């Protein structure tokens, strides 16, 4: 078709099953259905995109009508978009240990209830457990005759315990999400853990804010990699001039121990067998041995910015793809946990994550731990609550003094441009010097 340089179609159909149990009451449980498609047409100057709910696949003249209307829309664009050459291909999807669809919803509900009941504990005034299972059937075609179809299953649960005493209200929150199949069995321990943390926090003190040495557990250090480094390495932000990492390739940003990776191909919660533009997924070493090495790209930002690989385009069903992280992590180093706490000596140990946010252009990030402990003479002592960490990306990376020798990953969701996609973050324990810790405690 005249003026059409490229087009693609991505249709996702599927179903979502959820169960919500609140203090022993099944608030809601059931299944919903969706069918969403997005057609993108590229002319010389930019993209025309049509999002369609309830799309019926069509060919020939009918499909041409859709292409023509997307093409008309693209006429308002004013840029100069060139797509990078990319490898195509699809990875095998890991098999499910147990297909969640083979378990009936009554059993799921009973298992979830078991996790919720495990959080029954003195001083716990509320328990809430949610199960979510999403089955997505993805079909992708493009004008270069690439075509992929695959099915992804993601399922998991969250459990929240709220403890209360004399107006002091605290919470413990645990979650487990997986691409490897049904995971509600034998998980009561997490319900109990959420309750114990909530209750322990009733007696925790407020952290005193200020600059100090901080040990981050693998979950929080993973969020750090995601917020502080991952977002700023997204090629679209670099292209817009809205990243503090722009133009810094080859610069030393941290010590030799520090390597930060994004890899959509590993079998963690952010796994994609192929990206949302039909591009083969590849591992990107964002920071390699302390040096800024590569950006995350889609086809457009690869050709515009360079330095890195495409395969990082991701999208919610029916939405146009954006450059996104998938499984982001700090590589394990060689320090033992004991060495990390010894080296910290006096400071704070931060555990778990309540999420974070970044302003990549300014190079400022913020994130919050679920709880922490004071570190005194290399030992964890008093528990502290509501402790956060913020700082400047570049300065903070220089402050990573030690990386532990054991890495683990945590599942979650990441928001950008109004789209939320599954991700995982991970790291070993890390020691951060000159961390800016926030808390409401004072001397």
């Amino acid at each position, binding site marked *: 078709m005249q003026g059409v340089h490229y087009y693609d179609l991505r249709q996702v159909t599927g179903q979502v099953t959820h169960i919500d149990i609140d203090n022993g009451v099944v*608030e809601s449980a*059931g299944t*919903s259905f969706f069918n969403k498609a997005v057609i993108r047409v590229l002319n010389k100057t930019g993209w025309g995109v049509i999002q369609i*709910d309830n799309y019926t696949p069509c060919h020939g003249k009918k499909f041409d009508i859709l292409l023509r209307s997307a093409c008309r829309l693209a006429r308002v664009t004013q840029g100069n978009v060139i797509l990078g050459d990319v490898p195509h291909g699809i990875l095998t999807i890991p098999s499910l240990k147990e297909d969640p669809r083979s378990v009936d919803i009554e059993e799921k509900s009973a298992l979830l209830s078991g996790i919720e009941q495990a959080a029954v504990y003195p001083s716990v*005034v509320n328990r809430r457990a949610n199960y979510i299972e999403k089955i997505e059937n993805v079909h992708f075609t493009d004008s270069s005759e690439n075509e992929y179809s695959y099915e992804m299953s993601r399922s998991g649960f969250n459990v929240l315990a709220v403890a209360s005493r004399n107006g002091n209200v605290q919470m413990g929150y645990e979650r487990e999400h997986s691409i490897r199949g049904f995971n509600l069995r034998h998980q009561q321990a997490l319900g109990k853990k959420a309750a114990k943390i909530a209750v322990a926090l009733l007696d925790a003190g407020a952290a005193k804010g200020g600059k100090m040495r901080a040990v981050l557990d693998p979950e929080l250090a993973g969020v750090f990699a995601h917020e502080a480094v991952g977002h700023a390495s997204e090629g679209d932000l670099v292209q817009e001039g*809205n990243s503090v990492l722009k133009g810094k390739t080859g610069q030393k940003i941290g010590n030799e121990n520090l390597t930060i990776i994004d890899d959509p191909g590993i079998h963690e919660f952010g796994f994609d067998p192929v990206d949302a533009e039909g591009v083969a997924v590849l591992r990107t070493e964002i920071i390699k041995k302390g040096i800024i090495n590569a950006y995350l790209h889609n086809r457009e930002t690869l050709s515009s910015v360079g330095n890195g690989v495409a395969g990082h385009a991701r999208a919610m069903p029916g939405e146009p793809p954006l450059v996104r992280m998938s499984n982001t992590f700090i590589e394990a180093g060689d320090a033992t946990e004991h060495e990390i706490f010894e080296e910290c000596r006096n400071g704070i140990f931060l555990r778990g994550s309540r999420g974070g946010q970044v*302003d990549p252009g300014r190079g400022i990030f913020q994130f919050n731990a679920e709880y922490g402990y004071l570190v005194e003479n290399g030992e964890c002592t008093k528990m502290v609550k509501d402790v956060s960490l913020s700082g400047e990306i570049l300065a903070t990376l220089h402050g990573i003094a030690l990386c532990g020798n054991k890495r683990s990953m945590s599942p979650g969701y990441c928001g950008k441009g109004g789209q939320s996609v599954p991700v995982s973050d991970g790291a070993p324990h890390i020691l951060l010097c000159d961390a800016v810790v926030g808390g409401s405690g004072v001397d």
Partner: protein
Amino acid sequence: MAWIDQLIHEAQKAVDEVEVFYVEGISISAELKQKKVNLATTSKDCGLGIRTVHNGKIGSSSTNNPDQWRVCLNAAIASGKLATPQTWEGLPAPIPLSRTPLSFDASLEVKPAVVMDLIEKMLTGAEEHPAEVAAGSASLSSATVTLANSKGIRYTDQHTGVSLALEAIHNQSTGYEFDHSSFMNKVDPSAVGERATFFAMESDNGTDIVSGEYDILLSPLAYGELLGNVFIPALSGRNVHAGRSRLGQSLGESVIDSQITMYDDPLIKKANGSVRWDAEGTPARRVDFIRDGILETFAYDLKTAYRFGKTSTGNAVRGGFGGLPSIGHHNFVVDGKRRKIADERVVYVHNVVGAHTANPMSGEFSVELSNAFWMEGGEYDTPIRSAMLSGNVFDMHQRISGLSKESRALGSLILPSIKINKQRIIGK
């Protein structure tokens, strides 16, 4: 829509009550990469949400294929079988309500030329200051919402929307501004552009601040982040009865400064969240949560109200067709005695980073400042480079020393700037 009547008729063979929520809409948007439009999108959305009630058991399902309503209905009925039964006194019956929509602009055309005009005006506004435009967008939407139930309700409402956003950068300093309204003549694209480049410029070359307690002025944007993430959820009846609200035991007590009033008013003309009926068909009305600092009521939907022997306050909302109705608000207003609050020297905070990580139970927060300045006599003075604002959202409300004369609409929040004395800032 005959199929909705057919659906209700079919459902009544199996369940006591049924509710149908159906939305159809179109939208168009254009996105900027720096100063050039890179992508234009149109969308055609439709969605059907069904809720069934049988012997006090509530079931639900949704789909965006209305032709498949039978599958969806069966899934809703099956879902209801799992739910724990509760006291249920019925869906609302229809009452005569005005059919004139409150948040609909008949003159708003969902067309590419209109979007491009908005983009051009934003870019012209952005020229005012020599910061670079990084990204931006303009979008227009129009939707028709239908609520029907087995008690005879057949309500239809129309909504329109125009949304603008621009991000700017100058050296390592960023500025962001946005605007949203149901009405075309209530957004100012040129001001969105101007403010974005202004904040990027003005925040450059910031200085450090020493840790300590300061008198601060939170812009409506910064205040809205803390209020929306922590305070408003504590007013939800569901959170109260579940023990998840710090305000749960404080009805009739003074919970915030006595000069402040907080209410939800769904009937404000031309406001973004205005509706005549809530997501369950309960007539929408003004709800005074806090009057002169005294906590008077919590927000309820039907389900929570029936369960705890209360009355729905018309606060049921839906995030979309897919979710169940839940407790929310329509136009949440913070009001009280207004005065000039920027005369004395204060730390002005335009926005904060990371408010969603605050502890919604206890109210504790520590967030990073964004576009913060020393301000005196209402004028922006030296920018503050980087610091954290830390405290407790509930306690902070006890120390509000003034509300600005002007308010700003931010989605469904209508907020003034607020001045707070002695708030902790952690410097670098």
